[in-house]
């Protein structure tokens, strides 16, 4: 393909706490009090979610999944923000937040049904305070805004009780930032001073469209027009993502209103397993971003600065192999639903006319398979 010369927004002062080389740096607004053990735990998170992701891609190639939307390159943005949540906070993902799901203790296999085609999601959003994946881009930002309205009505902000004060974290992409829904969510959150953090993973691409198609200004700057703070964070730096999200979630819980976080990152893989990025972007781009890998820098820090023993990395690797096996075997074992189940949960109480359709359908399916 022809090399596409891109006008990338000049990088403003993006919050970074761990350089690509693995050096800890400080930021005056976002101090992070974290032990090396805690950083090691983040490393484990990053490795395991990358493993889940690469297994899912393999399963798609083998025909076990119909599709997969890979998080490769975005692990730090998702683990950093996901680990900033408290149990009683609520997260609203897109379709790519497998790393956030992991932080919410959602079993990896739970995510697979939708991509395998055995269900449309099918998990209880309130069981782990992790909403269903939402495929219509941007729609979930309004759901998150409404949830935050509920939080305020319930008096669960600004009480000073850390067990009670609640924040909402809404994920969306750079492409979705153009949708009316997202902008309406900003308006409502701003006007209502709602306890919500909008977390935009700017992975530079919306399928084939570079972020410059969506915006004339860096995305985080849009927040100003809606009346709340916006900040850009190095989305490949798990520590910075953790610190920045933690602080803004705290602000939300303390009744200081919404914020927008733009995690500056890169979608290393195709948009989904259906996509062919060679048609629209230069491979050299990914090569450059590889040098900013979210996992390598943590490993470099742990090895050089924290002097973590090789046994630790070996143990994480062993666990990652187990995870791979778990995902592989578990995916293949997900049963197909029965045909009649298409009538389940269309309504709380199945209307009689649908009951009749179901019966006809069931007996027809039986008659042709007999």
């Amino acid at each position: 393909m022809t090399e596409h010369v891109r006008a990338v927004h000049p990088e403003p002062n993006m919050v970074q706490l761990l350089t690509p080389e693995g050096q800890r740096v400080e930021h005056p607004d976002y101090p992070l009090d974290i032990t090396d053990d805690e950083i090691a735990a983040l490393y484990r998170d990053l490795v395991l979610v990358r493993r889940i992701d690469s297994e899912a891609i393999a399963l798609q190639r083998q025909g076990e999944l119909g599709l997969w939307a890979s998080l490769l390159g975005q692990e730090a943005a998702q683990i950093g923000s996901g680990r900033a949540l408290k149990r009683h906070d609520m997260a609203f993902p897109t379709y790519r937040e497998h790393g956030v799901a992991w932080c919410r203790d959602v079993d990896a296999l739970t995510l697979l049904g939708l991509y395998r085609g055995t269900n449309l999601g099918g998990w209880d959003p309130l069981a782990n305070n992790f909403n269903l994946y939402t495929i219509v881009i941007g729609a979930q930002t309004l759901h998150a805004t409404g949830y935050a309205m509920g939080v305020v009505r319930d008096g669960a902000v600004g009480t000073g009780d850390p067990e009670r004060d609640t924040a909402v974290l809404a994920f969306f992409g750079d492409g979705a930032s153009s949708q009316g829904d997202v902008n309406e969510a900003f308006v409502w959150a701003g006007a209502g001073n709602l306890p919500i953090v909008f977390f935009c993973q700017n992975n530079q691409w919306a399928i084939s469209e570079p972020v410059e198609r969506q915006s004339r200004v860096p995305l985080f700057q849009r927040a100003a027009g809606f009346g709340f703070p916006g900040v850009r964070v190095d989305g490949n730096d798990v520590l910075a993502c953790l610190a920045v999200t933690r602080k803004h979630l705290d602000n939300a819980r303390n009744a200081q209103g919404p914020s927008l976080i733009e995690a500056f990152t890169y979608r290393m893989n195709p948009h989904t397993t259906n996509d062919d990025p060679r048609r629209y972007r230069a491979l050299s781009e990914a090569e450059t971003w590889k040098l900013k890998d979210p996992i390598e820098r943590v490993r470099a820090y742990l090895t050089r600065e924290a002097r973590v023993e090789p046994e630790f990395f070996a143990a994480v690797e062993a666990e990652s192999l187990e995870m791979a096996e778990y995902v592989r075997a578990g995916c293949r074992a997900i049963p197909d639903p029965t045909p009649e189940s298409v009538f389940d949960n269309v309504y709380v109480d199945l209307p009689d006319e649908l009951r009749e359709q179901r019966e006809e359908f069931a007996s027809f399916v039986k008659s042709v398979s007999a």
Partner: protein
Amino acid sequence: MSDISSANPAVSSAPLGGPVTMARALNEGLRQAMEDDPKVVIMGEDVGRLGGVFRITDGLQKDFGEDRVIDTPLAESAIIGTAVGLALRGYRPVCEIQFDGFVFPGFDQIVSQVAKIHNRAAGLVRMPITIRIPFGGGIGAIEHHSESPETYFAHTPGLRVVSCSSPSDAYWMIQEAIASDDPVVFFEPKRQYHAAKLPIEPAGTPLDQARVVRPGRDVTVVAYGPTVATALTAAETLKVDGVEAEVIDLRSMSPLDMPTLLDSVRRTGRMVIVHEAPQSFGIGSEIAARVTEQAFYSLEAPVLRVTGFDTPYPPSRLEHDWLPNLDRLLDAVDRIMEF
């Protein structure tokens, strides 16, 4: 009855050489429309550099430039809403909605604006906007990628709603849609995009005419878009049992070509309508009602509908049972013949 002869005279220009897929036919039809009229602009998500996720606009940005093939910001309401403004300014926008299930953020602009502006302006302005929507299921996709939302649009006065079922129709109909001074919602059966290579006929059929694609005397099977192929296969199978099915490709869901439908059902006395959209309040329901009103004494049996069920589109592992497949269509024809 509707006067179908006056609207949309078939566009005529040299068709392509050899057989092509429907995807290629649409691409060439769009290309031809852009060459014929410099006011035609294409807009949508990923339509430019990528050529669309289905590659229907492949190469058009390269050949016509970024001004005429526009990769828009990701907002369907804006894709349609700005098309209205462009139309006011004399352009003929062709909007691509990436998948059926993503038209709804633009629904308000379509039904409250695009459909009504000509009427609101007492006929003084026209809205020559084409809205292309890949639709239908059977491709193993996730939610929102397999739906058949045509009824919502057919229920909206002011919109023409059509679907192609063959490469030749795709080639001609897309040009007719773009040439139409009414807004056209153009449904493309995505499962057929690459199904077969077929020749392009020397001329098209007017946009709002149905077509008998296989004559027969015993039963009329009405289909459009992806179900035309199912209906033709069924007709082949039925022939073995001595049942001659007449297959009508509806082509236009709104307006309906009642003369063609009535002429057929008056001869066969039986009609089965097959579409992927859910059954209730669907295109099939409207046709059944009109046939009952206008050809009651010709009917040997109630009009039957073979459709998707009245549920959300199911997870892909169940879609082949849920869709109006060959078995279900044959079963319906058996029932109507035995009535």
